[in-house]
């Protein structure tokens, strides 16, 4: 399926107010909201822990996982989760305290990506030619192509990830900000590092379905970066990051609905980047406030 040809023709006929009447848009909205919330929460910790590159690597692994599953004839989601979680554990095992040397990350993920091309060739040459766009869908997402079952499952998994993050948020925050103090207070820093990487892996697999493995990084990094620029208080930033991600997801879906030529993943990324860029615009202070806002 190519973007702008399938649902887009339906879109052009109806017009913006009817968006919620389309099942495919409802599915995209349901799955997209949950995925964005999960990505916002996970992304905040990724930025805080300076592990953005790890998130990038896991998103590339997602590509290979999905195509390997397709080439072998399984559901791509199976490959997504298996590959990202396995590599997350591998990366966690390589580094001390669940943090990894960036050269090792780079080496692993560029090879995994090469492997992805191998599976892509295998898939496009061995299976039906009708699926020639599979690689493009995995790389750039296909949120408007979700069935109702897929959307519900994606939303459930994303809610699970959110819940897990909320449960470990407090110790994870402590461990991220000051590892030594956390360790001294009896927080299992290493275990948390592993657990967090696992969640990143699951989130990467999950979000790949919406924005694709190449663009996932933007959904992880941009809302979190913007939230950190807007407030210094951790919990507020965490909530803000999730909120921004959800808002950007809605804006992107709406934009893509209104202008059918624009692929939804571009709309989402454009909204996220615009918000992040806006936080860099210097705001003139209205009053000489003695208290920092």
């Amino acid at each position: 399926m190519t973007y702008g040809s399938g649902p887009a023709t339906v879109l052009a006929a109806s017009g913006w107010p009817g968006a919620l009447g389309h099942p495919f848009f409802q599915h995209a909205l349901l799955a997209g909201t949950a995925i964005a919330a999960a990505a916002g929460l996970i992304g905040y910790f990724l930025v805080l822990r300076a592990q953005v590159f790890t998130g990038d690597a896991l998103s590339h692994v997602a590509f290979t996982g999905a195509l390997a599953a397709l080439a072998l004839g399984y559901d791509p989601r199976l490959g997504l989760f298996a590959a990202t979680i396995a590599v997350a554990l591998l990366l966690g095992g390589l580094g001390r305290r669940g943090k990894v040397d960036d050269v090792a990350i780079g080496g692993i993920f560029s090879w995994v990506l090469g492997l992805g091309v191998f599976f892509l060739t295998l898939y496009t040459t061995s299976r039906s030619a009708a699926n020639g766009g599979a690689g493009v869908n995995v790389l750039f997402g296909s949120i408007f192509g979700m069935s109702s079952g897929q959307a519900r499952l994606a939303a459930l998994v994303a809610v699970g990830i959110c819940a897990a993050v909320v449960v470990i948020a407090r110790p994870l925050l402590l461990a991220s900000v000051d590892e030594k103090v956390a360790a001294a207070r009896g927080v299992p820093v290493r275990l948390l590092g592993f657990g967090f990487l696992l969640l990143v892996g699951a989130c990467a697999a999950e979000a790949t379905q919406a924005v694709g493995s190449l663009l996932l990084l933007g959904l992880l990094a941009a809302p979190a970066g913007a939230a950190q620029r807007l407030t210094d208080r951790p919990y507020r930033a965490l909530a803000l990051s999730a909120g921004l991600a959800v808002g950007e997801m809605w804006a992107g879906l709406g934009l893509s609905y209104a202008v059918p030529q624009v692929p939804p993943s571009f709309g989402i990324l454009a909204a996220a980047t615009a918000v992040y860029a806006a936080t860099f615009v210097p705001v003139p202070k209205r009053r000489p406030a003695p208290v920092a806002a």
Partner: protein
Amino acid sequence: MPLADAYGGWSWNLITDVSQMWAFPFMVNAFRAGTVIAVGAGVMGWFMVLRRQSFAGHTLAVVGFPGAAGAALVGIGATYGYFAFCLTAALVVAAVPRAGRESEGREAAVVGTVQAFLLACGFLFTALYKGLLGGVTSLLFGSFLGITTTQVLVLLGVTVLVLAVLAAIGRPLLFASVDPDVAAGRGVPVRLLSTLFLVLLGAATAEASQITGTLLVFALLVMPAATAQALTARPVLSLALSALIAVAVTWLGLIAAYYSPYPLGFYVTTFAFAGYVLARAGGLAGRRRPAPLPAGGPA
């Protein structure tokens, strides 16, 4: 279908095979271009790994994709797109302020956002330019077929230029990479060198993207360099080794891709990764032995 099948297969006679493979101008050009690119990527990658700028390097490599897609959309040569985007991105990344280790995560957030947004732009361009949709894969993952002699000459020119500038700034850059604080104290213009280096890296990735594809340039940049640095700690030796490994990996990849149905990118990354794993495993095995010298080897 392997290319070789159309022209007669593997004969187990090395000289015949090579001469048979090189009887095709496109293979000769692929080897020429591959060699030039590998030398450039091996050398630039060595500095990149030394400076721990893998993430920036990855981003520079990736932005070539929207460049090429955009160039196709407006109807100019992909080469211009690669260079325009890679060089601009280098300047943007260089402009991101670096202030201590605490800002590491935030800096990566900016770089990551820029990278994902530009990739999304590339996707938009390809969506707008319908004819290219089948070409997304070759932009992202490279193609070694149809490299013209003119392209090889351009690649050679850019590589020579990049390496010449690098040779001129090599010593202060090495100093500034190993210990930026001391270098700054001695009056080395660390920030200027850093910007210049990123621009050179942008140029090197822009040219390498054209053959390995934007997603796999990074393999040629990072893995030969990491392998070389794991093997030896002497700067000049490991620099040479890095270029040598990059060339060897590219040649092996080209040969394997010629004789099999699978893409070049897969072979190049696989051989490079195998070398890296062997070097690291060898290094670990060497260090485990109860060495009479203090750990760490010759410094």
